[in-house]
C-alpha cells in the first residue's frame, strides 16, 4: 500500500510540473507581457523599458525556474492588473469557489445517485427511460444557458431566490445547481451500470433468500459495492468543478476564482492567469490522487493485485 501511494504521488508531482511548464511556455510565447502592462497606446520605447524593468527580456526558461522557485516558497508573483500579490488575490477569492464547488458536488450526489438507483432497479421501465432522457438532455445543455434560464425563472416569475452575488447561502443555490447538474449524467450512468451489475451477483441473491428486501437490501448490501467506482468519479468531478466555475461565476456574478480568471484574461494579466491555471490543474491532480487512494482503500483488489 505504501509503495502504491508513493508511486501515485510521484506521478501526480510529475504531472503538476509538466502542466506548469507547458502553461508557462504557451502563455509566454503567445503573449507579450510587457506590452500588456504598457497598455495599448504605449510607444515601442516605453514597452522596451518595461520589458527590461520587469526582466521579460531574459530567456523564458530562466523566468520559468524563477517562477517555480517562487511558488515553492509561497511567492505566487505580482498581478500587474490588480496591483496586488497573486497569492493574496487567490486567498481572497478561493473560499467562495470552494463553497460553490462543494455545494455543486452535493447537488450532483443528491440528484444523480437516487436517479441512477431508480433506473437500475427497474431496467427499461419508465423510470429508467426518464433517467436516461434526463442524462441526455443535461449533457446537451449549455451550462451558461441553463443559468440564464434559471435567472429568468427566479428573477421574474418566482422571485424566491437571489439571482446574482454571493453574500448569503441562498445565493449559492442556483449556481450550485447549474454547476452540479453538469456532472449528473456521468455519475448517474455509472451508478446505474454499477448497481445493475451488483443486483445480478450471487451475494445479492443470497441476501434476498435470507429475506432482505427493498431499501435494506439496497443500502446494506447492494449500494456499498455499486458505489465504489462512483466515489472516485465524484472526486474527479470535484476537481473539474474548479475549472468549471468560470462560467457559473460569470453568469451569477460570484466573486470567486473563476470570475477572477475571466477578469484577468480580459485584462491580459498573465501572472494571475498562469497561477489560476496551475491551481486548477493541481486541484484536479490532487483530486485524482485522492480518487486513486480512496479506490485502493475501499477495494482490496487494487491494493493487492
Amino acid at each position: 500500500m505504501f509503495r502504491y501511494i508513493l508511486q501515485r504521488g510521484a506521478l501526480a508531482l510529475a504531472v503538476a510540473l509538466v502542466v506548469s511548464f507547458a502553461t508557462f511556455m504557451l502563455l509566454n510565447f503567445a503573449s507579450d507581457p510587457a506590452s500588456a502592462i504598457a497598455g495599448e497606446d504605449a510607444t515601442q520605447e516605453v514597452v522596451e523599458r518595461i520589458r527590461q524593468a520587469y526582466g521579460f527580456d531574459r530567456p523564458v526558461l530562466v523566468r520559468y525556474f524563477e517562477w517555480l522557485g517562487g511558488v515553492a516558497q509561497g511567492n505566487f508573483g505580482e498581478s500587474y492588473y490588480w496591483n496586488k500579490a497573486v497569492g493574496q488575490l487567490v486567498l481572497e477569492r478561493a473560499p467562495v469557489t470552494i463553497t460553490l464547488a462543494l455545494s455543486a458536488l452535493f447537488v450532483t450526489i443528491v440528484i444523480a445517485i437516487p436517479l441512477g438507483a431508480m433506473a437500475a432497479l427497474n431496467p427499461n421501465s419508465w423510470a429508467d427511460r426518464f433517467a436516461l432522457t434526463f442524462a441526455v438532455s443535461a449533457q446537451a445543455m449549455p451550462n451558461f444557458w441553463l443559468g440564464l434560464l434559471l435567472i429568468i425563472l427566479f428573477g421574474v416569475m418566482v422571485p424566491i431566490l437571489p439571482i446574482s452575488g454571493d453574500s448569503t447561502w441562498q445565493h449559492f443555490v442556483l449556481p450550485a445547481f447549474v454547476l452540479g447538474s453538469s456532472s449528473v449524467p456521468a455519475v448517474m450512468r455509472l451508478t446505474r451500470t454499477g448497481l445493475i451489475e451488483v443486483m445480478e451477483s450471487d451475494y445479492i441473491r443470497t441476501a434476498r433468500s435470507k429475506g432482505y428486501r427493498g431499501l435494506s437490501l439496497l443500502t446494506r448490501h447492494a449500494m456499498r459495492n455499486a458505489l465504489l467506482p462512483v466515489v472516485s468519479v465524484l472526486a474527479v468531478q470535484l476537481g473539474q468543478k474548479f475549472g468549471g466555475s468560470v462560467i457559473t461565476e460569470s453568469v451569477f456574478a460570484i466573486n470567486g476564482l473563476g470570475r477572477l480568471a475571466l477578469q484577468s484574461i480580459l485584462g491580459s494579466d498573465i501572472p494571475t492567469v498562469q497561477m489560476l491555471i496551475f491551481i486548477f490543474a493541481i486541484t484536479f491532480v490532487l483530486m485524482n490522487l485522492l480518487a486513486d487512494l480512496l479506490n485502493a482503500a475501499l477495494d482490496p483488489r487494487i491494493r493487492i493485485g
Partner: protein
Amino acid sequence: MSVETDPQLLPEDLLAPSPRSQLLHRALSHKGLLIGGFIVGTLILVALFAPLLAPHDPYAQSLAKRLLPPAWEAGGSWDHILGTDQVGRDYLSRLIYGTQVSLIIGFGAASVGLVIGVTLGVCAGYFGGWIDTVVSFVLTAQLALPGLLLAMALVFIIGPSVWVVIGIIGVLHWTYYLVVTRSATQRLKSQDFVAAANAMGASRWQVLRSEILPNVSSQIIVIFTFELGIAILAESSLSFLGVGIQPPIPSWGLMIAEGKQALFFRPSLVLFPGLMLFLLVIGANLLGDGLRDVTSPQGRN
C-alpha cells in the same frame, strides 16, 4: 449475354443477409439514431442553404426596428418572425447563419482533435514500450489541464478568429480519441490478419494504414460525433464569455451574451439561440449513441 451462376455461391449465402444489410437494418430500427441523424442532417442542410432560407441579411441593422418581439407577441410582425436584436437585425436570419458557425467550428475542431488523438493512440497501441509510456503521461497531463480556462486565455492572447477557435478547441480535445484507439490497436495488434500482413512483408506503415486504421474507423466515427457536440458547446461557452467568436458574426453563444443585456425585457433573445444549441448537441449525442449501439451491438451500456 447469358447469366452464369457462380458455382461457389450456395443458396444459403444468398438468403442470409449480408453484414452490410444487417447493419442497415439495425440502424433503421434504432430510434435514437434516426432522431439524432434527422436533427443533425436537417441542421447541415440549413447551414448549406442559409442564403436561401434566411429572410433577411443577418448583418443588416435597422435602428427603427430594434428589439422587436417575435411575431406572435403583441407588437411583433411577420416580417421578422422571431423578432430583432438590439441593433435591429432579423433574429431568425441570424439563427440560421449561426448554424454555419457552430457546424464549421464543430467539424473543424473535432477533426483537429481526431488527427492528434488517433495518431497518438495508434502509435501508443501499436508500438507499446516507451512510446506508450510517454503518450500515457501526456494524456494524464492533458486531462489535468483546465481546458476551458486555457482555451479562453489562448484565444484571447492569440486573437479571436474562427480559425484560432477551431485550432485551440481541437488541440485541447483529443483524449477520448486517444484512449479508444489505443486500446483498440492493442487488441488488433495480436490478431491473425495483422500477423499475416507482417508475414507477407508489409511495412509498419502499411500495417497501420491498411490493417489497423480501417478496423478502428467505426469507433473513430462514433467519437467524432460526440466530440462534435463537445466542440460546439466549447465554442458557445468561449463566445458567451467574450473570448471566442467576435461580433458581428452570428455565433449562438455570442448571441446569448448579447441577448443577456435585455434578459428580462426580451427573454426570447436568450431562449432561441440556446434552444438551437441544445437541439444540435442533443442531435449529435443521439447520433453518437446510436452509431455506437449499431456498430457494436454487444457494447451497449
